[in-house]
C-alpha cells in the first residue's frame, strides 16, 4: 500500500481529477432522481433541486405505496424474472454442457445451429406472429420463453465448461456415473461462479425488459414493471389517476422520480453481487468460442 503512494505528480492528480469527473457524471443522475423524489412540491416547481433534497419529505413514497398498479406490475416482473432466469439457466447449461464435449458426434453442426441465430433471424414481426400462433400472446410466458437463451451467455458458459479438466469427468465415468449425475455432482459445483454470473445477467435482463411486454401484453393487469414505469413516466398516467390532494403536475414529477427509485432499487440491491461476478463473465465472453 505504501508503495502505491510513491509520488504524486501533477499529471497523476490531473488524471485522478478527470476520472473523478467522469465518475461524478455517471453518479449525478441517480443523485438527482433521489433528491427530486424527496423534495417538496415548491422546490421541484422552482427547479432548485440539484444534488440534495430541498425541504425533505416523503410524500411521494407514501403516495407510491398506494399505487396498486406499480406493486402488481412488480409482482409480475418478480414472477417473470424468477421463472425466466430458471428456464434460461437450465437451457443454457444443457446446451453449453453437451456442446462442450469434444468427443460428441455432430457437435459442430449443432453448435452452428445455435450460433447461426446470432447473425440471422426472423426479426421482430415474424417472431411476433409465431408467438401469437403459439398462443403465448397476452400471457406471462411471452415475457420470457421467446428469449430464453442468449447465444452470448451460451458461449461464455461453454468456454467455462471446456476448461474443466476432463480427467475429473472420466474418473466419474469409470465409477459408473452417467452424464446427468456428472453434470449435477461434478460440473455444476465447479461452475457456481459462472452460473451466478450468467444467472445475474439473465435476471437483470428480465427485470429491465420492457419491450417484450410492449409487444406481447395487451392486458394492463399483466404489465411488467418497466412497461408500467414507461406508461407512468411518459404518458402522464400518474396525473389522471392520482388523488386530488396531490393532483398537481409537480407532485407528479416527484412521484415519477420516486417510482424510478422503487423500480431500480432491486438492481442496486443486488449490484454488489453482480459486480463481484460480471467482470469475469464479460471477459470470458470476449474470448471467442
Amino acid at each position, binding site marked *: 500500500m505504501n508503495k*502505491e503512494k*510513491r509520488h504524486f505528480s501533477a*499529471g*497523476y492528480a490531473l488524471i*485522478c481529477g478527470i*476520472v473523478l469527473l*467522469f*465518475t461524478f457524471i*455517471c*453518479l449525478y*443522475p*441517480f443523485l*438527482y*432522481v433521489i433528491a427530486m423524489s424527496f423534495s417538496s412540491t415548491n422546490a*421541484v*416547481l422552482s*427547479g*432548485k*433541486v*440539484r444534488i440534495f433534497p430541498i425541504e425533505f419529505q416523503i410524500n411521494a413514497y407514501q403516495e407510491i405505496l398506494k399505487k396498486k398498479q406499480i406493486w402488481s406490475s412488480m409482482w409480475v416482473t418478480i414472477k417473470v424474472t424468477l421463472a425466466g432466469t430458471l428456464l434460461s439457466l437450465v*437451457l443454457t447449461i*444443457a446446451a453449453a454442457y*453437451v456442446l462442450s*464435449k469434444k468427443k*460428441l*458426434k455432430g457437435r459442430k453442426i*449443432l453448435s452452428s445451429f*445455435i450460433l447461426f*441465430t446470432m*447473425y*440471422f*433471424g*426472423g*426479426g*421482430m*414481426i*415474424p*417472431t411476433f*406472429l*409465431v408467438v401469437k400462433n403459439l398462443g403465448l400472446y397476452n400471457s406471462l410466458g411471452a415475457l420470457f420463453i421467446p428469449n430464453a*437463451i442468449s447465444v452470448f451467455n451460451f458461449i461464455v458458459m461453454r468456454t467455462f465448461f471446456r476448461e474443466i479438466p476432463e480427467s475429473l469427468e472420466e474418473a466419474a465415468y469409470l*465409477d*459408473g456415473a*452417467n*452424464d446427468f449425475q456428472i453434470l449435477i455432482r461434478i460440473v455444476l459445483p465447479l461452475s457456481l461462479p459462472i452460473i451466478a454470473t450468467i444467472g445475474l445477467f439473465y435476471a437483470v435482463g428480465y427485470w*429491465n*425488459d*420492457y*419491450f417484450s411486454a410492449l409487444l406481447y401484453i395487451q392486458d394492463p393487469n399483466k404489465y411488467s414493471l*418497466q412497461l408500467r*414505469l414507461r406508461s407512468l*413516466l411518459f404518458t402522464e398516467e400518474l396525473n389522471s389517476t392520482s388523488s386530488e390532494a396531490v393532483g398537481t403536475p409537480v407532485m407528479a414529477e416527484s412521484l415519477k*422520480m420516486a417510482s*424510478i427509485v422503487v*423500480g*431500480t432499487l432491486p438492481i442496486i440491491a443486488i449490484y454488489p453481487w453482480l*459486480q463481484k461476478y*460480471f467482470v469475469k463473465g*464479460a*471477459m470470458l465472453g470476449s474470448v471467442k468460442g
Partner: protein
Amino acid sequence: MRNRKGNMIKNDPERKVVSRKDGKKFLFYLRKDLMLYLFLIPVILYYVLFKYWPMYGLTIAFKDYNVFKGITGSAWNGLTNWVTTFSNQWLWKSIRNTLGLNLITLAVEFPLTIILSLMLNEIRHVKFKKITQSILYLPHFVSWVVVAGIVRGIFAQEGGAINGLLNQAGISSVPFMSNNGWWIFTYVVSNVWKGIGWGTIIYLAALTSVDESLYEAAYIDGATKFQRTIYITIPMIKPVMVTMLILSVSKMMNIGLDAPLLLGNNKVMEVSQVISTYIYRLGIEKAQYSVSTVIGLFQSVVNIIILLAADFVAKLIGEEGIL
C-alpha cells in the same frame, strides 16, 4: 461394473439390454452420448420454435399476409411489398438516422472509452479505483425506461436541472428534447453515459496483460509517462482497439430500439425514427406485417453483407476475424 449397471437400470431400463449383449466401447459411448442428445432436445425445440420458425416467417415479405390464412396459407404476391416499402420516404429516413446516430455515437464513445481506460489504468490507489469503477459500471445495469425517465427530467426545457443551471448563468433554455440537432446531442450523451464504463472492461483487461518489463526498460531509457503511453501502451492494445472498432462498424445497421423509442417524440421524429422503431410502428402499431417484414429482412441481409465485409477487412489488415 455392478455399480455402473445399477445406475443404468435406474435411468434407462430399455438400453440396458443392448449393453449386456456386447458391452463394447462403441455402444458405451453411444449410450453415454444418447443422454447428452436428450439434454439437447429442449434446446433444439426452443431454437426451432422461436428462431427458425420466424426465419420461415420471413416468406411473408413476398406474400400478401392474411391473419386468418397464416404464414403458409397467404398468397404470394412477388415484389409488391418491396415496391411499397422502398417507395416510402420514411424507410430512407430511418436508414439515414440509423447510420447517422450509430456513427456519431461511435465517434464520441470509442475514443472516450479508450481515454477513460488509459486513465483508469494509471490509477494506483486500489480503493479509489475500485469505487470509481463500481460507479462507472452502474449505468449499464439500469433499464432504458429508467434512463429515459431520468434524461427527460434532467434535460427538460422547463424545470430540468441543466436548463436550470443555464438559466442561472443567464443563458436561455435549450430545447434538448424537441429540437432535431439538440435531440441527437441528448441521444448521444445518454448512450455514452450508459455505455462508457462498461466499455472500459475489455480495454482494462488488455491493459493488465501488457508486459511490465517494457515500461521498466523505457523508464530506464528516460521515457516520460506520456511517451510510455504513446509508444508502449497504445501499440500493445491496438489489436483490441481494432477488433472493437470493426465490431462496432459491423453493427452500423443495427440499432437498439429502446433508446430511440423511449427518448424520441413526435417533434423530433425526423431524426429519431430508426429502422427498428419504424418496423415497430409499422408492424405492431399499424399491423402492416408484410411490409414491415420486408424492412426487417432487408436489414438482416445488409447486416450480413457488412459483417462479411468487416470480417474480410479485419483479416486483410492482419487482425483476427470477427466471425
